[in-house]
């Protein structure tokens, strides 16, 4: 029960949530709700693993994962943006589709996999920093470092660039954006696709780096849904998303480790002596997601800001008011 180990593992598994959450933030900021993250992550995980096992190239696997999930997300885009179907149901359909496809195509994939298929690095100088070093820069998969780089880039893109301005406009007031010459449909497609790419990346990160292998639905075990909840908690801001993702990652590790030692803080460790109580620990990430959602919703209510104003509402060109 070493706190540093827990945090270190937390950062690692939190990276998965980070990618998925950031991807969904892009999609939702443009006004499209994509609930298919779980399905896209599964397809990503399956594709990454199978391609890597077949070709021996982890990067190729990641690329295929991103493309596969991205392609799926375009289906959701087509149905929600062009056909203006209900985005909730379309997202659900996408989840079923992604799950089904990954189960079918992933059938027979070697389930074992203890070797990580992507390189692991320790950054020379930075890993010597007390506390932060061992947690953030020691023995972490390359994906984790990619995550660190992503974070500020995403924030800058959304808030300090012209395309980011357009992204925000399209999600807040698509009619105004349209009138100002922005192609609302095209932009929304683009960001839904980005969301898909990142979800695929998240899935690939699981099956290649964090928990290598393919374990059917257990590969993701609901992390896609947790990511969607985290978007609300993050109030659509990348930094808060990172905080939530890493915290959840740490929680998952904590749940595992807490069942190990005989005594906890000097007291009898109930989880050691009653192994079945571990099931209650299993509930924690999901219960926490609910709590995190409650916090996020209350904040949104209080600040009267929150979701992009046009989130979930299909944009229909040419409709006049009244």
């Amino acid at each position, binding site marked *: 029960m070493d706190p540093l180990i827990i945090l270190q593992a937390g950062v690692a598994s939190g990276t998965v949530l980070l990618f998925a959450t950031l991807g969904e933030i892009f999609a939702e900021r443009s006004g499209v709700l994509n609930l298919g993250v779980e399905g896209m992550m599964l397809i990503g995980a399956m594709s990454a693993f199978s391609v890597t096992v077949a070709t021996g190239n982890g990067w190729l696997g990641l690329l295929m994962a991103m493309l596969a999930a991205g392609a799926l997300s375009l289906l959701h885009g087509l*149905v929600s943006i*062009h056909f203006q*179907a209900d985005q909730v149901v379309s997202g659900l*359909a996408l989840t079923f589709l992604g*799950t089904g496809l990954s189960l079918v195509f992933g*059938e027979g994939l070697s389930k074992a996999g203890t070797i990580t298929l992507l390189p692991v690095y320790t950054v020379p100088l930075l890993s010597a920093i007390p506390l932060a070093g061992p947690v953030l820069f020691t023995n972490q998969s390359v994906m984790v470092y990619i995550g660190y780089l992503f974070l500020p880039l995403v924030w800058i893109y959304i808030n300090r660039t012209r395309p980011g301005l357009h992204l925000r406009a399209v999600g807040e007031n698509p009619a105004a954006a349209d009138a100002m010459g922005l192609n609302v449909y095209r932009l929304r497609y683009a960001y839904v696709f980005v969301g898909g790419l990142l979800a695929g990346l998240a899935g690939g990160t699981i099956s290649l780096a964090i928990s290598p292998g393919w374990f059917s639905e257990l590969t993701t075990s609901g992390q896609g849904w947790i990511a969607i909840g985290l978007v609300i908690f993050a109030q659509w801001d990348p930094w808060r998303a990172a905080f939530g993702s890493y915290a959840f990652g740490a929680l998952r590790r904590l749940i595992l480790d807490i069942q190990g030692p005989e005594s906890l803080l000097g007291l009898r460790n109930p989880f050691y002596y009653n192994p079945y109580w571990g099931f209650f620990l299993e509930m924690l990430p999901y219960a926490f997601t609910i709590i995190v*959602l409650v916090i996020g919703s209350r904040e949104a209510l209080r600040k009267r800001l929150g979701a992009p104003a046009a989130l979930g509402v299909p944009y229909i060109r040419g409709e006049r008011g009244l």
Partner: protein
Amino acid sequence: MATQATSPVKSPAFPFRLRFERRVEVPPPWLGPAVSVGAIVIALLLGAVVLRLVGGDPWAAYRHIARAAFGDIGVFSDTLVKATPLILTGLACSVAFRMKLWNIGAEGQFFAGALAASAVVLAPYVPAGAPGWIAIPAAAVAALIPPTAPGWIIIPAMLVAGMLGGALWGFIPGWLKAKLRVNEIITTLMMNYIVIALVNFFVFGVWSEGGFQMSRTFQKAAWLPRLADFATQVKAFRGLTTHLGLVFGVIAAVIVWYILYRSRWGYEIRLIGDNPRAADYAGINITRNTVLVLMTSGALAGLAGMSEIAGVVHRLQTSISPGYGFSGIIIAWLAKLNPLVVVPVSILFGGLILAGREIQPSGVPRLIQGIILFMLIASEVLMHYRVRLVRAGAEE
């Protein structure tokens, strides 16, 4: 409202363009069912393509499904058994979706109902060293409903327990949504994972029989009567596993239909689902209805769980559902949220799930269900828009 602009859809680099024109009149009545059937057909075709891609033989697979599900009375009876929980979860989802409450938690509510119903029967068998919060209620229940109690006491008790368990599992996300505006999609889904862990705890940690992942088998009094039980009176019923749960399902469908279309509450539900602001304006209490509807939805799914426990499995175990709760979502959508249509659609899906067990790869039934839902939504555009193929450059 009758004048809408055309929105020319610019498809990239196509020689033709699709022109979507908003419908000005009500679409013809045959369009809805035609679209649904078309969606299923296309889904089956696409499923066939996928099966081919992974090296299977789609037509053999489909023929097998047809035979294995509807081939003779025996298998049809098995199909009905699979359809029973589907009817109830389909109803659960229909009711909630009517009010635009996205209950993705039917699976969890199913488990909650199964757990509660099992608890009624297994209460006397809580092991000695169990902690107080389990032992004391268990003792109370065991006193009220001893193992020797006859069927006409146990079954209704299980029924009530199942519905209450599901209702509780629906209440929590419902209350959170009503009072705190928390997104019910995620909360209901999280509750799924939570209850499954809870069931695992009770199966492994409390009622496990010899360390296996199941409890002891229930006494006969706790079994829902089956057609096969009457084989001595009616020879034809021999071996038929269809059980009383089917009757619950059909009765529930009729009741739900009645509520939705003939009662004041149903009107309120439909109005809220269509336009919550108008419902507010009409003086309807949305908060209260949110909680009530999710509880009702949960109760229906919980009833499905009870029916599966008492009618098929006859014990508490960790795997009771191949995704009944999720299939319910698709069934509800396919039935266009009409409670009566849910019944035949559930039978169809029941056949698919039953026969699909024997198909490799195992994800195929799930995949087909996903494609069906997808095609359904994609095709709904036809209800609101007319599609015309226009030569690019001719107009606009």
